[in-house]
């Protein structure tokens, strides 16, 4: 535990329960992780930005993670003046996937939230232009979710074995292909 995280923990004590509620707090590799309820995310970001003893004026990274049973949005905050490093985390589910946008506080949320929207299907309320960024507008599904089918799914295999037959290749090629692709390069046990 270094000096800076201790300072950050001390500064975090100035947050009142009327601002927002910290569900869980821990130190994680130089960052102070804060878990908050997703309904309070905007309040939490606003407090961290405007509280004079925290002054986290830089939102440098927003990432989404899919943990299968729930999803997480992680905001990495930094204070240029005081050096606080805070990771704010909020949990959402696939059904209940709406969150307040950080765009009114930081304009950098524009593209970063759009990327999370197209990759995970998490909706950010209050974002002025929430549509696909890297993918085409009619792209089906949310590619970074863990249940998104990869190229080595059954349909693709079927197509490939058909062409193998068409070209007069031996039939056991399909079996060979199946094992190779399914193991995905791992050694056979």
């Amino acid at each position, binding site marked *: 535990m270094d000096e800076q995280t201790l300072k950050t923990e001390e500064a975090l004590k100035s947050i009142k329960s009327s601002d927002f509620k910290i569900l869980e707090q821990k130190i994680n*590799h130089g960052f102070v992780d804060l878990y908050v309820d997703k309904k309070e995310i905007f309040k939490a970001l606003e407090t961290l930005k405007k509280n004079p003893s925290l002054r986290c004026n*830089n*939102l440098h990274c927003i*990432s989404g*993670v899919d943990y299968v049973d729930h999803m997480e949005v992680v905001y990495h905050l930094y204070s*240029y003046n005081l050096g606080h490093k805070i990771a704010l985390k909020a949990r959402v589910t696939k059904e209940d996937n709406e969150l307040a946008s950080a765009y009114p506080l930081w304009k*950098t949320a524009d593209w970063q939230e759009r990327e999370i929207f197209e990759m995970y299907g998490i909706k950010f309320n209050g974002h002025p232009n929430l549509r696909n960024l890297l*993918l085409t507008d009619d792209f089906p599904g949310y590619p970074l979710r863990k249940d998104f089918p990869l190229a080595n799914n059954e349909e693709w295999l079927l197509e490939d074995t058909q062409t193998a037959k068409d070209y007069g290749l031996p039939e056991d090629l399909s079996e060979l292909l199946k094992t190779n692709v399914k193991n995905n390069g791992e050694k056979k046990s």
Partner: protein
Amino acid sequence: MATTKKLQTKTVSVNFGPQHPSMHGVLFVRVELDGELVVHVEPHIGYLHRSMEKIFENSYYNQCIAISDRADYLGGYFNETVIALAAERLMEIEVPPRAEYLRVILMELTRIANHIFYWGNYGQDLGSFWTTALWAWREREMYYDIVEEISGYRQHPNYIRIGGVYKDTTDGWLQKVLDFCDEMEKRLKIYENLVTYNEIFLARSKNVGKITKKWAIDWGITGPLLRCAGVKWDLRKDDPYSVYDQFEFDIPTTRNGDCWDAYRVRMDEITESIKIVRQAVSKIPAGPIRCKLPMLVEPPKGDTYARIEGPRGELGCYLVSDGSKKPYRLKLRAPAFVNLASITEFLKDQLIGDFIALLAIYDPVMGEVDR
């Protein structure tokens, strides 16, 4: 009787890119013009999207490092190092000092090559047809020779490993690095004479555009663009990683935040990088270059965020591990992506003649923007 009508102008929509000689990579910007004035900017990205983050989730860590070279294809060493740093932080391993020094030398050489490439292209964008660009490519060739000798590849080195580096130096390699520094210093003077205070160059870049501190922080801008607005902030000094705390160097800043300042900061950074390389070569210790680790590493369960100062700003890596041989989630926080988001505001209400001059100071590498 004819009545005098108020003159009505009509806006014209112009497509810039994705294939355009002065566009940097496959960036597509739809510009709404009112005469010569840009009234609306609508960037479209994703032409180079290779779903890199999904591929990371299905690859081993050493494969991730090889793939990450393709993100920022002008500075592969940075992407590799940030992933290695994140994994090392989770595994709580210490890298042998010789490997750390080799990383620093190669990262700083890459920064020099990247900024030189920027210099060449920026000169070309502002009208020095091919002279600067070809000179920059000549200089970059010297850098590629050095890199090729140590890693075996030119653009995609695949050299950094988790827990160290791939290979030790060959005989006389460090001397070649020093020779490169000497040569660069000589050529920097020629560049200064040719471009920096050139009258045409000054006319086209001085007082064009304005980056302010508050605006830059609001948009999450980092790197040379933040420093040209006067914020003295560099991760190498302010959040030191690797062995950067053992070198003496300055962080060049300027105050105006115009195109010329963005150029000036980068040119000064080359001088500082040469200083760091010289110190690293003189201080480099002998010893092992890699920890004894299995080929396929398994970082323990947890998540971490590592960040380094890339040539375009803060290059971050958010790594979530579930204890297996493959990362559960690996997000690259690409500086070019975050910086480029601000062009909708930055290019608005500017003249179309300044458009490329303003866009080029972002130094966008589309491989990194689209990933």
